[in-house]
């Protein structure tokens, strides 16, 4: 396993009176795609939001590229090189597709070659370039959310359930796009419920249950072990295909 780019150690998160994360420990190696799996309510979204500083960790530490970002503000965390695609996508529906991408490029104009590459990954966005993003379908909004996250080079992408609610054909397009991102060397932490998609993409896997990490290792091991799938996820890969 490569040197971890992101390292969570003993992270606890409370939301109001509720104790959601109970000492979460895991690492995201640089240049690899790590899947974060688990049932509904396992704490996956809370983990991503805690990394982004949208909810503050009550204890433990989060280190990104050797720097402690546990108490950093969300803008500082984003500026350190982490892009975030929330489960609800966070698209600005009153802004056009173009304006959404312009806004994501903090340092200035979007690089022409990079935009060509992005529109190559998500060609549907070209068609709606100057339309308000609110006019897009769910799948197209998801594409825009990811395109926005990669509008500029980022060191780590946090993506929350990108295939949720999408038609199978759209899920396949999304998988292809993630494969292309992987090939480009992006480091990605991807929350996913669809084990078929997860197994097709992941280098590593972290499984959560009830706010705790119950398994961490190579995705290949989990894919090859039906009993482990049943135990950790309650379903086997066969059931997802």
């Amino acid at each position, binding site marked *: 396993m490569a040197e971890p780019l992101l390292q969570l150690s003993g992270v606890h998160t409370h939301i109001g009176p509720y104790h959601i994360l109970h000492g979460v420990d895991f690492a995201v190696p640089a240049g690899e795609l790590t899947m974060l799996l688990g049932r509904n309510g396992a704490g996956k979204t809370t983990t991503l939001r805690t990394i982004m500083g*949208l909810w503050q960790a009550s204890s433990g530490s989060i280190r990104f590229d050797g720097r402690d970002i546990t108490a950093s503000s969300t*803008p500082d965390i*984003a500026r350190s090189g982490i892009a*975030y695609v929330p489960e609800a996508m*966070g698209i600005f529906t009153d802004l056009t597709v173009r304006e959404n991408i312009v*806004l994501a490029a*903090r340092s200035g104009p*979007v690089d*022409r070659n990079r935009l060509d590459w992005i529109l190559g990954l998500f060609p549907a966005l*070209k068609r709606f370039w100057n339309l308000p993003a609110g006019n897009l379908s769910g799948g197209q909004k998801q594409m825009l959310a990811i395109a926005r996250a990669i509008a500029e080079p980022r060191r780590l992408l946090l993506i929350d359930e990108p295939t949720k609610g999408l038609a199978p054909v759209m899920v396949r397009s999304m998988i292809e796009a993630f494969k292309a991102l992987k090939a480009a060397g992006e480091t990605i932490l991807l929350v996913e419920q669809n084990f078929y998609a997860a197994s097709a993409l992941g280098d590593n896997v972290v499984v959560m249950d009830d706010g705790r990490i119950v398994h961490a290792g190579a995705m290949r091991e989990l894919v090859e072990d039906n009993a482990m799938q049943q135990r950790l996820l309650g379903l086997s890969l066969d059931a997802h295909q």
Partner: protein
Amino acid sequence: MSDMAAESSAPTELPRAKTDWLPLFLVPALALLALPFVGSPSTWVTLTLAGLAMGMMIFLMASGLTLVFGLMDIINFGHGVFISLGAYATLIVLGPLAGWAQADSIGLNLALLGLCILCAMAVTGVVGAVFERVIVRPVYGSHLKQILVTMGGLIVTEQAIHAIWGASPIPIPLPQSLRGAFVFGDVVMERYRVVAVVIGLAVFLGMQLLLNRTRLGLLIRAGVENPEMVEALGYRIRRLFVSVFIAGSALAGLGGVMWAFYRQTLTAGMGMEVMVLVFIVIIIGGLGSVGGCFVGSILVALVANYVGFIEPKLALISNILVMALVLIWRPQGLFPVARR
């Protein structure tokens, strides 16, 4: 906008965005509807022009609040005091430059008005920054507390105005060249109202350019819709909030100057007196929508003018009636902003 180096990457033939024109037709439709009831065409033109000018002044006073309301989700009941404060700030300029108001020179008169506006915007901007830091910031996220605390801030600032400038109404002279009216046949248009229309249009166009043609404008529009995502993109929304609050206060100060010269009398409560109208306008327009605020202001002013002429007894409730009808048609206002 030059933010996208790769315009060429976009396709040449694109579907066009649908523009919501319907609310824009309300203003001419209302004007045409009023014509047979008013009777005399010249009176109708006079009422319509006066209504447009009044609409611009309402817009100047309301535009800042719609941004603050829309972006920051702050119910600032203290907005009215910035209108009063802006109005009183004219005294800082009128004191030493009283001669300019009496001079029979349009240049000097307009320069005086411009200086009054700059001074008022500076004063209300600074007080707005303090108001945001001391009064508003501790109550982000709690509407009830915002109403109570900003009302408190309003009372304190009003009393401060009394302490500085006294409790008695203060007359202020309209600059010499802006007195009187232009008369075209039977149509009368006060000169000062023409100035109000020009300034109102300039502010509206400036705000439209800022919001639609600049990165700051994109940030404000995005922040109105989803402030958390703006932060996740790496922008410090808190700074944006403070800037918008200061700009909103400064715009209220500008509106206060225009309102003060229109009334030609200063009272500490003059801002609070128009706040009902201001809230009606931003609700009609759609919270956070500058375009909606603009159309809503003109609509409310025209209705007030027409109804005041046709059936004066109904004038008091005409604005509430307009708001009710608009909200029945479009519950989120004429130009709803996505988040709301």
